[in-house]
């Protein structure tokens, strides 16, 4: 018998712990995803796309234990009027959740609708994920589509008066959650979707987003304080004409995070802005992997990623802008920057542009640096103590990413979380 290929055996080992849900409208998509997953295999260390991030702990059939962190900051976004939907270790918590009723949006749970034979989500579930597998494979997303136990499907038909919030609570040291969300924004509709919390010891999350012409989605995620949790998340977004997608992700600690973002600008005059601010300390590995495809005229995309790293933390950024032939008047911007607060931390970046149209403006930049000594001295010479001056400069560094959030109150909340992280030094 020939030796099993390590990729296949790793994939099979992972699959032993999982059962493919059957029946209902999603069955074909799940079966298709499983076949795709088996064909591509789970990532190995040697894979080019995983060069900077070790997938090992994401491959284990059991989630590595992660102590539950008691967060004394309170729930993020708690202060807003919102529809809050709570999952504890990936399991829906009805008592803690609000009733899913809000004018302008239909929110349902994947598990609730699983048995239906027909549902609008069928058109989207696994569709954007599957499309996002080319030209680069994203096996954990396929795994998610196949095995997701729950999640929400959101149909935005109008302009709801308040945000929908997904709260992911981590309460078990061994939880291994797989949640899949689908968001469809109708023509001219608009929603703010919030997401917060560490979710589980190990979390695999996919959100597929389809924004019709003139629609808008603000997606703000905060993967709160929790030192030992691991997460691999994907967002797949398709943007119609004159639509807007603005995503922001805050990450405060966590031993391993891989956030992939795959966006297709499919209609003319669309805007996609993705931003992230992450702060990490010690045993912290944070990877933002972004792939933006311009496939229409006069679209704008913006990527702004900032990482503050200390005590040996590692930051990764892989960002690509692909401008297809014919996507003229594209305006693409990408910046990824790391601020290293000591010599032990590191930032690994791979910015890429691939352009097949001639009338485009695309720029990218990536920097790694320490606190600006001149600025530090200037602040201190005005009487600001060294530690406060360092904090001020650190926040100043992150602010460009936070400013990508339109809602001032949400942005201020994010800033205050960053301030308390700094204060805990």
């Amino acid at each position, binding site marked *: 018998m020939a030796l099993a290929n390590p990729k296949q055996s790793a994939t099979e080992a992972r699959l032993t712990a999982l059962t493919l849900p059957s029946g209902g409208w999603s069955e074909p998509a799940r079966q298709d995803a499983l076949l795709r997953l088996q064909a591509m295999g789970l990532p190995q260390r040697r894979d080019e796309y995983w060069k900077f991030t070790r997938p090992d702990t994401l491959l284990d059939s059991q989630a590595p234990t992660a102590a539950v962190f008691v967060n004394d900051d309170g729930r993020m976004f708690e202060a807003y009027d919102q529809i809050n939907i709570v999952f504890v270790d990936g399991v829906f918590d009805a008592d803690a959740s609000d009733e899913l009723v809000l004018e302008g949006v239909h929110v349902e749970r994947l598990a609730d609708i699983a048995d239906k034979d027909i549902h609008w989500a069928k058109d989207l579930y696994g569709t954007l994920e599957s499309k996002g597998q080319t030209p680069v494979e994203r096996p954990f997303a396929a795994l998610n589509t196949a095995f997701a136990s729950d999640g929400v499907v959101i149909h935005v038909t109008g302009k709801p008066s308040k945000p929908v919030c997904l709260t992911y609570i981590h309460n078990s040291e061994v939880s291994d959650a797989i949640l899949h969300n689908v968001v469809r924004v109708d023509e001219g509709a608009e929603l703010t979707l919030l997401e917060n919390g560490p979710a589980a010891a190990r979390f695999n999350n996919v959100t597929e987003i389809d924004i019709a012409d003139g629609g808008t989605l603000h997606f703000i995620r905060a993967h709160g304080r929790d030192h030992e949790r691991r997460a691999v998340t994907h967002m797949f977004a398709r943007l119609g004409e004159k639509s807007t997608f603005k995503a922001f992700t805050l990450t405060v600690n966590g031993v391993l995070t891989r956030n992939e973002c795959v966006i297709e600008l499919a209609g003319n005059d669309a805007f996609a802005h993705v931003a992230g601010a992450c702060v990490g300390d010690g045993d912290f590995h944070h990877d933002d992997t972004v792939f933006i495809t311009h496939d229409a005229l006069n679209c704008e995309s913006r990527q702004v990623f900032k990482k503050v790293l200390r005590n040996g933390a590692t930051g990764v950024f892989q960002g690509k802008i692909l401008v297809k032939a014919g996507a003229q008047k594209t305006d693409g911007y990408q910046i990824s920057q790391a601020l290293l607060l000591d010599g032990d931390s590191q930032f690994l970046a791979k910015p890429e542009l691939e352009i097949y149209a001639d009338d485009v403006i695309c720029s990218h930049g990536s920097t790694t640096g320490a606190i600006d000594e001149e600025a530090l001295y200037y602040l201190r*010479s005005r009487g600001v103590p060294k530690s406060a001056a360092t904090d001020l400069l650190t926040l100043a560094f992150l602010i460009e990413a936070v400013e990508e959030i339109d809602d001032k109150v949400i942005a201020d909340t994010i800033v205050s979380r960053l301030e308390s992280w700094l204060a805990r030094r």
Partner: protein
Amino acid sequence: MLNINNLHVELEEEDKKILKGVDLTIKAGTVHAIMGPNGSGKSTLSYVLSGKDGYDVTEGAATLDGLDLLDMEPEERAAAGLFLAFQYPVEIPGVGNMTFLRTAVNAQRKARGEDEMSAADFLKLVRARAKELKIDADMLKRPVNVGFSGGEKKRNEILQMAMLEPKMCILDETDSGLDVDAMKLVAQGVNALRAEGRSFLVITHYQRLLDHIKPDVVHIMADGKIIKSGGPDLALEVENNGYEDILAEVA
């Protein structure tokens, strides 16, 4: 107020002596000017006094009202009442000018054991002081010195000085890069702050500024030393004859 005694300074990185025995005594309430050719060590003196890294003091001392300046952190020197208006003010993207001012004012108050200034009092004061220096609301909102013109940066330095109310103010070429009107504005700002308990050390290349900020004593610095001191006339002498005569006279 400020006592500098036989100050010798070298660069930390390379073996280069910059200050070679500076002596200077500034009494409370007086204005001193230092003039001198480029590279004579004027900025270095101001940096060493305010606590910038990169310099080794190999000999001598500097005290502010008896406190050993050289033994203090830059922020402690500031809280003790020392202020340096930079020759090249630093740009700080992401930090709003107003936030910066308020943080500095309150940090100094805290260091001195005083209460923080209330947000309302602070706003009132900053608006009044900014207006005198023709600094508009937009400049207060923008990140510190980012996108400011040369003149705006210098006016912003004087605004900080006016807000912090230091007792020993060092102005390093605050006039360079300013047109006549801007220079008058800056000079007015400085003159408004003149007070019995407050002293100034004005570093400049030109007599011009000293027409507006009248010094009590003028020093000439060359090659890391003060080579001549005198009254305001000394500045006029430099203006008319350059440094050559003085350098030759001392040599």
